[in-house]
């Protein structure tokens, strides 16, 4: 009986580990060259989150070797078609993004968390995003990732802590956190394999 429990525990642990790793078979089968990032869905109460976030996505993705369609122009084109709501845009058939932009893949981002939590002397700023890259021809999910990033301010002597918590309360700059989260999402161990403009293109299979 003890053995059975142990076996179940080990199996549970193993499947837990395996589930964390991305299955990139579909990615390698379709290898996108170009990615269109559509307006970001925001599930956090912070209204400015999506517009702040969208300014920090092109660079890390393009530096990974992909042709990234300019986000502002993308937004304007979608608007011309009456597509304003991110929630609505995320529901469109993926093939629509091939028709509109000629993009190989579409990246959907949902902001799960974008908040500041206050304890007595410490403030912690948190952002969390969910990324899904979908092939525009087949509708298959090529890659997905979830990236939280938390930064606590405070620590050290009590006066500095009070001051820094007060500063955080006055003006929370989420942008550096969003940048960091994007960087980790694309470059980390569950990141996107390098695209055609990157020197590691087709050489980094063993990394993921």
């Amino acid at each position, binding site marked *: 009986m003890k053995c059975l429990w142990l076996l179940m525990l080990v199996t549970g642990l193993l499947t837990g580990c395996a589930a964390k790793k991305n299955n990139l078979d579909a990615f390698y089968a379709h290898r996108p060259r170009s990615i269109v990032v559509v307006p970001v869905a925001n599930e956090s109460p912070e209204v400015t989150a999506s517009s702040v976030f969208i300014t920090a996505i*092109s*660079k890390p993705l393009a530096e990974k070797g992909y*042709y990234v*369609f300019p*986000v502002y122009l993308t937004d*304007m084109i979608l608007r011309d078609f009456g597509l304003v709501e991110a929630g609505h845009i995320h529901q469109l058939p993926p093939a629509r993004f091939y028709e*509109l932009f*000629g993009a190989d893949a579409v990246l959907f981002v949902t902001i799960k968390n974008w908040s500041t939590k206050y304890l007595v002397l410490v403030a912690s700023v948190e952002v969390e995003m969910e990324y899904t890259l979908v092939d525009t021809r087949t509708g298959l999910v090529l890659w997905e990732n979830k990236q939280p990033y938390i930064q606590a301010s405070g620590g050290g002597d009590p006066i500095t802590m009070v001051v820094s918590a007060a500063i955080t309360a006055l003006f929370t700059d989420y942008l550096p956190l969003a940048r960091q989260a994007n960087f980790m999402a694309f470059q980390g161990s569950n990141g996107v394999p390098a695209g055609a403009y990157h020197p590691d293109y087709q050489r980094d299979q063993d990394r993921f």
Partner: protein
Amino acid sequence: MQYFMYKGHFNFLSQSIFCCFIFSCLLLEGCAPSPLFYWGDYEDSLYERYVENDTGQTEVHLQESFAEAQKTNQRVPPGLYADYGFMLYKRGDKSGAITAFDQEKKQYPESALLMTKLIERVQQKKDTGISKSNEPLKAGGQQ
């Protein structure tokens, strides 16, 4: 003899420092690969447009990026010429817009489908003499 030993010890120390230095240089280089593109103020310019709703500086930011990329012999990032073309279109410079869209297409063939559509649309507006710059620039098929 003692002098030589001391000197030998000193050499070993300086050699290790040198080795450490070289090693850390290699590490740093490994951690921060040189960027593929010259970005300049692109992210700031997006922030101005999206968050501050101010398009006043966009053109200047983009022009600076192009000039600096050329000067430092770096690549202009994907999308910047297209972004610039759209700016020019918005302020009524249709020929300038077509040139910029064409540049994007030449540098990044992945954009060809969209750029061709945009060029066609701007060309049509140019030919029909519509000068309204707020005219939507529908580039796709039917909705």
